[in-house]
């Protein structure tokens, strides 16, 4: 179904918009939050792309990113907390 790829484009655009927050973000926290959101948007774009390509095996990547994407964020949080 063709509209899936439009959804993917839309999510990619959103991710691009978030890069503005990464650029501007006055503190590291904002950048980390934006990075986390970009990770999630990437996951959604991957889902949408794999259903567009009609290959279920593509979903493994989205699964990996969804499960492990938060590790980096939590680690950054711990770093900021000062008790890594």
């Amino acid at each position, binding site marked *: 179904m063709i509209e899936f790829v439009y959804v993917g484009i839309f999510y990619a655009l959103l991710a691009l918009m978030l890069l503005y927050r990464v650029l501007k973000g006055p503190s590291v926290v904002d950048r980390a939050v934006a990075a986390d959101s970009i990770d999630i948007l990437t996951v959604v774009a991957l889902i949408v792309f794999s259903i567009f*390509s*009609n*290959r*279920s*095996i*593509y979903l493994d990547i989205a699964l990996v990113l969804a499960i492990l994407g938060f590790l980096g964020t939590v680690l950054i949080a711990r770093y900021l907390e000062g008790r890594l």
Partner: protein
Amino acid sequence: MILVNYIACIILIVLGFYVILTKKNILKIIIGMGLVDYGINLLIISIGFNPGGTAPIFTFSELRPESFFVDPVPQALTLTSIVIGACVTAMALSLVIKIKEKYGTLDADKVRRLNG
């Protein structure tokens, strides 16, 4: 589509080399090496891409008779390259930690006991 990729790869590689050449922080230099890696991996995958092809993994249910594969060889090469890149990063970082312990600084201008 592919032309954009090639340009992006070259820009990535150039950015990485720019970091290696100009930044004085060793950790930043290693980040630059990572960027060069990204650029080259992207270049390899872009070379193997066929417009309209699908992933070179055979499944019964989802492939239509007319589908064809993108070139699998560059993907294998890129996997190796990614593995090597990860190893380089890990090794360089462990060296950085040791250097920081020994020299007390990460400034490339000061890590120069061997010269001349």
